[in-house]
């Protein structure tokens, strides 16, 4: 699966590439709008991460060109311009998602995999990992064919860690994913611990191996 990252902040690009490589994505990078346009002419991508503010032009212009070319699917706008205006404009032009900077790499990972899932597996909206099957439309989880009764938060949590499997997901990233932008204002992640404990218990009760490992002081890791 090919991803194009259009972003001028080189250090950020390096981090994104390094993080997404775990998922066996092939990442290509464009640091300028011209560079991006050239690459888009030649190749097709499964997902495009598009920064709005580029040194040689506005990312929204690229978005418009993509729309004209009918290659809109899979565009995630990443922007430091945390203004609603950009978000509305971007989504009106047909971008799939909008992720304001600064973001957690785990959050980006989850969004990218969601976009790719939507694109690749149209009609068949399930996600599997060994005996776990997640029905993305019905928002249900089953282990070995048997439905596990999860709360919405637990479902979100599981989907989030599966989307970032084999990588450590920090508590902050989970908190922000579950409770929105202001969740970290509490500086208290006990509630994540509680949700995680319940989720693990329910999965184990459904005869599922405990794939969620606690990384002390940091967060959690979903791995086989």
């Amino acid at each position, binding site marked *: 699966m090919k991803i194009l990252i259009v972003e001028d*902040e080189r*250090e*950020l690009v390096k*981090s*994104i590439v*390094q*993080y997404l490589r*775990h998922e066996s994505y092939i990442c290509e990078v464009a640091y300028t709008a011209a560079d991006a346009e050239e690459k888009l002419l030649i190749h097709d991508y499964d997902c495009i991460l598009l920064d709005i503010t580029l040194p040689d032009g506005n990312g929204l212009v690229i978005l418009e060109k993509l729309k004209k070319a009918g290659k809109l699917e899979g565009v995630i706008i990443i922007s*430091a311009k*945390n*203004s*609603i205006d950009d978000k509305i404009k971007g989504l009106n032009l047909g971008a799939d998602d909008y992720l304001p*900077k*600064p*973001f*957690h*790499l*785990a959050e980006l990972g989850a969004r990218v995999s969601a976009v790719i899932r939507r694109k690749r597996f149209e009609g068949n909206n399930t996600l599997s990992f060994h005996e776990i099957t997640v029905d993305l439309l019905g928002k249900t989880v089953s282990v070995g064919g048997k439905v596990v009764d999860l709360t919405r*938060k637990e479902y979100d949590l599981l989907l989030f860690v599966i989307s970032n499997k084999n*990588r*450590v997901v*920090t508590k*902050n*990233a989970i908190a922000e994913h*579950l*409770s*929105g932008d*202001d*969740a*970290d*204002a*509490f*500086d*208290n992640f*006990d*509630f994540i611990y*509680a*949700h995680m404990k319940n989720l693990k218990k329910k999965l184990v009760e459904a005869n599922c191996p405990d794939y969620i490992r606690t*990384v*002390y*002081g*940091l*967060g959690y890791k979903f791995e086989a």
Partner: protein
Amino acid sequence: MKLLSRTVQNYVIFSALLLIISTPVFYFSIQRLFVHELDKELISHKSEFYQIIPLLKTESELEFFRLMNDEFILREGQPISRKDSIYSATLYNEKEDDMQAYRILNTRVEIHGKPHLLQIRESLVSTKDLVTAIVAIQVFLISILLAGLAIINRKLSKTVWGPFYLILDRLKRYQIDRDTSIDLPRSSTAEFRDLSAAITQLVERNREAFQNQKEFTENASHELQTPLAVCRTKLELLAQTKELTEQQAELVGSLFHGVERISRLNKNLLLLSRIENRQFLEIEEIDLLSVANKYLDLYRSHLQDKGLQVKCSIDEHATLKANAVLLDVLMSNLITNAVRYSFEGSTIILEGTRDYMLVSNSGEPLKNPEKIFERFHRESRIEVGNGLGLSIVKKICEVKGYQLTYHYRDSMHHFKITFGG
């Protein structure tokens, strides 16, 4: 006291003093002048009488003269001093049947070889009337002068001082965070022209400083965003390293935590300066209850952790026209604040209609309640917040013209926002 009243007051005091002092002085000097004239007249009457004496040859002629000139009185056989005397006295006037003031000259004359007392009288009545009339006219003139002064000053204040009051009015209305420049009236008076120029310059410099400060905050936090994001992502990558020991993982976790706190602080500073720069202008119809429910839902886990109850009595149809982002921030900050500082197991009260919203939570009374909305003010160092939440709430209220009040009653903190206006 107004400038005009102060000037007029001084004029009035001076004029009144002048009036009080000058009236008796004027009165007495005029009277003296008149009496002096009368005395001169009496003396001339005396010399006239001397010319008449040789003509009065018989006793009957003398009697005739007495009857004809009642201002001349002749008496015989009295001890008479050789010196003349002049004095004022009040005597009975037979003709007018009244007591009257007179100026009297007593002198000794020899008629037919016999010494006589000659008394010549002049009435003082006409003199007194004249003096009174003159003083009355003077008082009248000074009064007119005073009234004239007052009227002229009033007119002057309207015309000459007009630009001054206009400048004052503009200055009062000027708001550094809203108005771009101050528009002062042109005046033909040099002083006011100078004043206008000086004020314009001052305002311009202040506005520049204010603008710089505003831009600095926004630029600084904007510029901080990227390096912070890089730090954060690098730490996230570091967390992925396979060989990470438990000790290292904890270090990375602490670093991550620190970077998160800086990011949040930075985000709030940026938000604060964006609100100050009035970047949130879109207005839409918003349902207050659904906003509250959104955040109560997001924070449900935190509420449960502290065993907090929520009593939400927001009107179901409480809609108001507001900026969605700012209303979200208001609601989220107030609820976060309530959750953070409530006693465990207590109740948070939310009330609201289309006109106001009230968030109440339990807690210790504040040591410095007047500082509660100040930036970076914290009641104690142990607190977890960054000290910006409530100042953001206050800034939003300021910018949007909402009224924000805080009070502590029945062991509860009450934050009330009155919309309206």
